[in-house]
């Protein structure tokens, strides 16, 4: 290794305080990954009837823990760590106030701990608390108030995190008024703008409906409304998970491949498109909801199809960047360049396999998004099969692979074993291929999702794809391989943390082949894109929500749209006022005609 690289500072050397935050966020994410994986393997073996260590009545609690720990805690903690790294690195300056940074970390950690406790308490009868509402926590399932309070605190933490990064960018902008927003910061800011829009609905749903309902302040809620508000948030959250993976694919993967990002402007266009299009599509999760008119569903489907565009742009740009890297390394031929890529590097291989699986997830996603064919697989295990390819592999595997590249720079410790890392990412790919594929196949047979007992008495599933029992075996084998892969990843990381600190681990990210100077200035106009995003949200949601409230009432049919405690309170106030007025009138009458009093 050259002396120049030896002397080059790593992220930890340059920004030690921020590196601590990144490490803390990643470790929180990986703790959640461990919990989620444990619940995952128990659930897989239970559902497939291979081994049952819990009663089926606890299955919902288990499923909630698996979902919440993985898709809220693991992904979002990794995201905030990665974004802190990306903003600090690309602006090349520390965050404005590290105390604020630790504040949002503490809010998020405290919030998810509350939520986690409320879920895990469901496993014991000793505590009168449960939150078996699944990750999709809309009504009519009701959780303990602690679940909602914890989620609220967690989301407030992410809001403060976003403000922290916006603040860092504004401080940088004051010093560099004529510069383009650095690409990684641009990605972070557009993602957070999308997050603010998306979480507004879930905040309303929790604070106005679910939490007061759980506390007993209101009698009931309108389930369709809470479902719609959840999916207003529930689809963009998918892109919130995905954007860290995109950030790594766009800015880190080309570098590991030995090349450079193909096009900075295309990357910016993709992130703007996600900001615009990820929110006004949530109703495509509700194709079978009877309370929403078909026309609104159709609009949502059309918007969803537009979302294919940024995904396809990404496929093109990332593959072009990687191909450029391979050709720089001496690769030739139509496909011969593939052999010149650094496949021994677990960071590279993990991200490439994650991208490959994302393509497969995109195909099954198109089936989910199509209004007519969705009916065939709606609420079947096809849907978990789909999102284990997207969030479960494209996102999770990229995050693990990215850690192999990033961890040495935030800790100055080399990865304990790259061969174990390589084996781990390939094992994930094989495990997921088995599990997800069999889930898709079972879904086509009509096997339902979200149940511990997917078989019905007196009913046999069709025998295609090998049949229900055989597909169960594939799911169980795949799930077991995934669990082993997770343990290998976490073990490798723990052993890495025991490594001594060394120098020479610094990595730099090369500029794009087509740089920001080629991108139209308007792409950096965040106000414009946020405004358009809001207009699209209003167009997609104003009428459906108005119709839902009009038909079903704000708090359900036949229920007054105000909290129940207002009725006795208002009665009390009315009585008090009546007594007061009576007394006044009596006094006036007793003291003679009004004119006398006035005189």
């Amino acid at each position, binding site marked *: *290794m050259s002396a120049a*690289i030896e002397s080059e500072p790593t992220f930890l050397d340059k920004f030690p305080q921020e590196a601590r935050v990144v490490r803390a966020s990643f470790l929180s994410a990986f703790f959640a990954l461990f919990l989620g994986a444990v619940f995952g393997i128990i659930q897989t073996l239970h559902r497939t009837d291979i081994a049952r260590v819990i009663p089926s009545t606890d299955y919902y609690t288990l499923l909630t823990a698996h979902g919440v720990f993985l898709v809220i805690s693991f992904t979002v903690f990794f995201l905030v760590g990665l974004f802190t790294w990306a903003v600090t690195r690309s602006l090349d300056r520390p965050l404005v106030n590290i105390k604020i940074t630790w504040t949002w970390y503490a809010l998020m950690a405290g919030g998810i701990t509350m939520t986690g406790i409320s879920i895990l308490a469901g496993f014991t009868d000793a505590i009168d608390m449960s939150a078996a509402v699944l990750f999709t926590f809309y009504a009519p399932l009701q959780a303990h108030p602690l679940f909602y309070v914890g989620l609220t605190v967690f989301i407030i933490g992410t809001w403060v995190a976003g403000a922290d990064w916006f603040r860092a960018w504004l401080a940088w902008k004051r010093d560099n008024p004529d510069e383009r927003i650095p690409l990684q910061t641009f990605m972070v800011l557009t993602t957070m703008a999308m997050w603010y829009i998306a979480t507004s609905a879930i905040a309303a749903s929790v604070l106005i409906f679910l939490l007061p309902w759980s506390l007993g302040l209101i009698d009931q809620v309108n389930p369709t409304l809470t479902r719609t508000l959840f999916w207003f948030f529930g689809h963009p959250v998918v892109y919130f998970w995905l954007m860290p993976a995109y950030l790594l694919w766009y800015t880190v993967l080309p*570098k*590991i491949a*030995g*090349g450079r990002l193909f096009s900075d402007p295309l990357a910016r266009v993709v992130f703007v498109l996600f900001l615009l299009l990820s929110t006004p599509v949530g109703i495509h999760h509700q194709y079978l909801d009877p309370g929403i008119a078909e026309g609104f569903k159709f609009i949502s489907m059309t918007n969803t199809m537009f979302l294919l565009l940024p995904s396809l742009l990404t496929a093109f740009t990332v593959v072009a960047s990687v191909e450029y890297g391979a050709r*720089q*390394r001496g690769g030739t031929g139509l496909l011969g360049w*593939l*052999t*010149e*890529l*650094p*496949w*021994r*590097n*677990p960071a*590279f*291989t993990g991200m*490439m*396999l994650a991208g*490959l699986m994302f393509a497969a997830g995109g195909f099954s996603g198109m089936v989910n998004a199509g209004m007519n064919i969705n009916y065939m697989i709606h609420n079947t295990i096809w849907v978990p099969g789909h999102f284990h390819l997207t969030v479960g592999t494209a996102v999770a595997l990229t995050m693990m692979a990215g850690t192999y590249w990033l961890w040495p720079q935030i800790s100055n410790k080399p990865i304990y074993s790259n*061969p174990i890392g*390589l*084996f781990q990412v*390939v094992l994930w*790919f*094989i495990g997921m*291929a*088995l599990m997800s*594929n069999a889930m898709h*196949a079972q879904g086509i047979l009509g096997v339902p999702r979200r149940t511990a007992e997917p078989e019905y008495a007196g009913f046999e599933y069709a025998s*295609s*794809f*090998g049949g229900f029992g*055989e597909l169960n*075996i*594939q799911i169980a*084998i795949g799930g077991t391989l995934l669990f082993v892969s997770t343990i290998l990843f976490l073990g490798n990381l723990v052993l890495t943390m025991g490594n001594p600190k060394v120098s020479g681990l*610094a*990595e*730099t990210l*090369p500029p794009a082949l087509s740089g920001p100077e080629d991108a139209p200035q308007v792409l950096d106009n965040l106000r414009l894109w946020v405004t358009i995003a809001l207009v699209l949200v209003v167009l997609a949601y104003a009428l459906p929500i108005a119709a839902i409230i009009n038909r079903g009432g704000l708090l359900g049919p036949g229920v007054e749209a105000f909290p129940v405690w207002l009725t006795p309170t208002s009665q009390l106030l009315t009585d008090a006022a009546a007594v007061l007025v009576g007394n006044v009138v009596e006094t006036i009458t007793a003291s003679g005609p009004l004119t006398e009093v006035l005189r």
Partner: protein
Amino acid sequence: MSVDISRGGLLVALAIFGVILYEIRTVLDFVGIELPLIPYLIGVFVLAGVVLWIVSLKGGWRTEPDGEEPT
């Protein structure tokens, strides 16, 4: 003679082709050829192992550093 491909490349190629080979069983099922699941799955893994064994007999895969340092 060593295989002019890195260990990672070989593993990835085997994983992808292994998955395809495994899925061919479903296709065979559609055309009426039913093969038992577990033996077939073991067969695919054994086949991958045999390929790795042959590669190691032929001198192994490419293990020299191949320019993963920062460019």
